């Protein structure tokens, strides 16, 4: 046996065990409330992974991503209610629109640096919200104004119309979406445009001096990010069957995505997932148990966690957790990890 193989076996076994566990979870958890919490965890992990393409790799801080969630949700829902288009098709239309809008917004704003980009995306997000709140009807399409839209109910579990009474199908759909999103991120991180993107994100001047068209790759990343975010928006609409501007287009939502990424580890593949796994339960439980004390308390707690993480682990929780995992493997296998 060559050195390190025992360690590698244990590593593989643990990862396979986790994958099996994640894919069989609905068999163990029967309580729909817990399922709902898990689904939301995966959804936030998915949305933050999409956000991470711009917010992480491109090195800017978008704070208006709820706009694209909203575009996805509104587009697929309006298409379905007005013309009977299945949300499965509508979600791609929504994603396409979001990508176009993202590109249009991205071309001028991605040239901005630091806080200016963050502020302009925030302004755009708020603009979309105000627009949605003041639009009750466009032609035959009901937008619903501040009251939002209630999706008509379809009896039973209807795969064709993306509506289920059981939580299990939602769990698998979002799990697969998350896996695909993670694969895309992983793939991008290993190809040339991914390196350009990261280089442009870290040292734009240096990258440009080397001939990298930084803003081109950033706009690409933005378009892809918006595309994926909008798909998540349709999923959210089909899951809750009700949405309204303050919720789906609100700043709280955009901030939460950024918080999750920053705490988990911005610009890493696992960061958004870890962030969502850590912060979603905090959010749910503060909402359930502390909501009567102070509304919005979960955002305050997020803020506090964010400050602590930024002081002690400025690259997010991915690093310490990853070190911990390595040490655990070392201990289990009795072999030392080869240093990179």
């Amino acid at each position, binding site marked *: 046996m060559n050195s390190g193989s025992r360690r590698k076996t244990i590593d593989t076994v*643990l*990862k396979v065990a*986790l994958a099996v*566990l994640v894919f069989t*979870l609905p068999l*163990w*958890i029967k*309580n*729909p*409330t*817990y399922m*709902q919490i898990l689904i939301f965890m995966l959804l936030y992990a998915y949305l933050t992974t999409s956000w991470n393409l711009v917010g992480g790799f491109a090195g800017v801080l978008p704070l208006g991503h709820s706009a694209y969630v909203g575009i996805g949700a509104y587009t697929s829902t309006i298409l379905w209610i007005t013309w009977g288009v299945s949300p499965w098709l509508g979600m791609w239309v929504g994603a396409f629109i979001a990508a176009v809008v993202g590109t249009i917004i991205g071309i001028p704003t991605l040239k901005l640096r630091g806080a200016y980009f963050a502020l302009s995306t925030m302004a755009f997000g708020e603009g979309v919200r105000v627009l949605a709140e003041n639009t009750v009807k466009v032609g035959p399409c009901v937008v619903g*104004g*501040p*009251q*939002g839209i*209630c999706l*008509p*109910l379809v009896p039973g579990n209807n795969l064709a119309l993306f509506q289920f*009474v059981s939580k299990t199908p939602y769990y698998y759909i979002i799990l697969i979406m998350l896996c695909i999103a*993670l694969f895309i991120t*992983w793939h991008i*991180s*290993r190809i040339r445009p991914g*390196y350009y993107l*990261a*280089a442009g994100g*870290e040292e734009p001047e240096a990258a440009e001096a080397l001939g990298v068209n930084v803003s081109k790759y950033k706009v690409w990343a933005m378009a892809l990010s918006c595309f994926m975010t909008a798909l998540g928006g349709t999923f959210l609409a089909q899951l*809750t*069957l*009700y949405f*309204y501007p303050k*919720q789906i287009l609100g700043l709280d939502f955009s901030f939460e995505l950024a918080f999750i990424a920053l705490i988990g*580890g911005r*610009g*890493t*593949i*696992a*960061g958004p*997932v*870890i962030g969502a*796994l*850590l912060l979603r*339960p905090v959010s749910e439980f503060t*909402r*359930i148990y502390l*909501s*009567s004390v102070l*509304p919005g308390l979960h955002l305050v707690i997020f803020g506090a966690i964010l400050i602590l993480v930024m002081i002690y682990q400025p*690259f997010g*929780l*991915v*690093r310490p*957790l*990853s070190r*911990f*995992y*390595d040490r*655990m493997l070392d201990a289990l296998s009795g072999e030392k990890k080869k240093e*990179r």
Partner: protein
Amino acid sequence: MKRVFRHTLKGVVVFGLSVLLVLSAGQASKAAGPKEIKIGNILPLSGPSASVGLQNKQAVELATEKINAAGGIKSLGGAKLVNVFTDSKGDPNVGVTAAEQLINTEKVVLISGAWNSAVTYPSTQVAERYQVPYVVPVSVADKITERGFKYTFRIAAKDSWWTDYQFKFLEEQKKLTGTKIETMAFVYENGDWGTGMAKQWHERAKKFGYKVVLDEAYPSTASDLTPVVMKIKTKKPDVILLTSNAADAILLTNTMATMKVKAKAIIGTGGGHADPAFRKNTGKNCEYMFDVVEWETDLGRPQIPALNAEFKKRYGYDLAGESVDAFASVYVIADALERAKSTDPKKIRDALAATKLCVGQGKLGIDILSYDCIEFDKTGQNKHAGIVLVQFRDVKGTMERVTVFPTKVARPGFKAVFPMP
């Protein structure tokens, strides 16, 4: 950067495992005690409508206590009603989560709520999806019972019935007093309820030939409504129609008084104006304003004074129309359970659909209503729900709500002061 990319799914393994452990630990099932029937209540217990939410809760608690003390649900071996209260914060999103939680985790057999139409609208959909009956004591938005739902039952009148009475009243006063009324201002909170009312007002204003000079929606969480009042003042409408929650109703009334806004009639639409806190915090400023309401303490029903005294002694304020609906709703629920002889949500639904409760059957919750019977049509709407108009009047030094319309149920010795002085 490449190093950072290499931090792959390792962290997830560690984290995933620990989260799973926590979740699976919480899976232990709770055994429900026998002879207890759990009813879920979704109410705004914090946020802008918290004070009315609390009164609803108290009315439900008092009614439940009375029913339990009288032997509970006899056809189910004297089972006691147990209320589970959840706070919606007046937020639709939280309301939906609350409904899911009540049905899935608390395993309630029936839900009651949710005061705010904006919360009731999506949360009834959750109940419909899980086929659990949902009794709506007060939320008035028409569309709540207009979606073909089988599990939603509303006791209060629809908002279109409320606006109907506001205009009926104006027409009658025009004839009686010869006052000219031409222009109107609509001022309302920008949620589901307010916008629903405003739509009705527009239709009726058109029908009766009034000119709408101002249509102003405002957020009910606003801490300053001076700009809104400024607009009213410059437009000088004959009639101001309001739809407000508690805090904003108080703020609007006081700001209008400070800025000396005058109109021939200022008419509220229940909600915040029906809240006892409104009178307490506006004092003289609300004198001669009108409000439409489903119920009033001065109605001619013999059981009201004793119950109101008991309520006031315990909680410190009078019963309001909405607390009466909430109080009555518990009797409707108990009656349905009694006839269903089961806690199966489907059987309870069928029993609710067959409800026919009238004044004089010895049910306290019904005997205090302003109308005679509760009976649901096939959309789940109580067909008999009725409305009265009140005027805020200084009666021997205290500000009281005096029923003035319809004239046949007006408080003896009083008639509307119109136009407002």
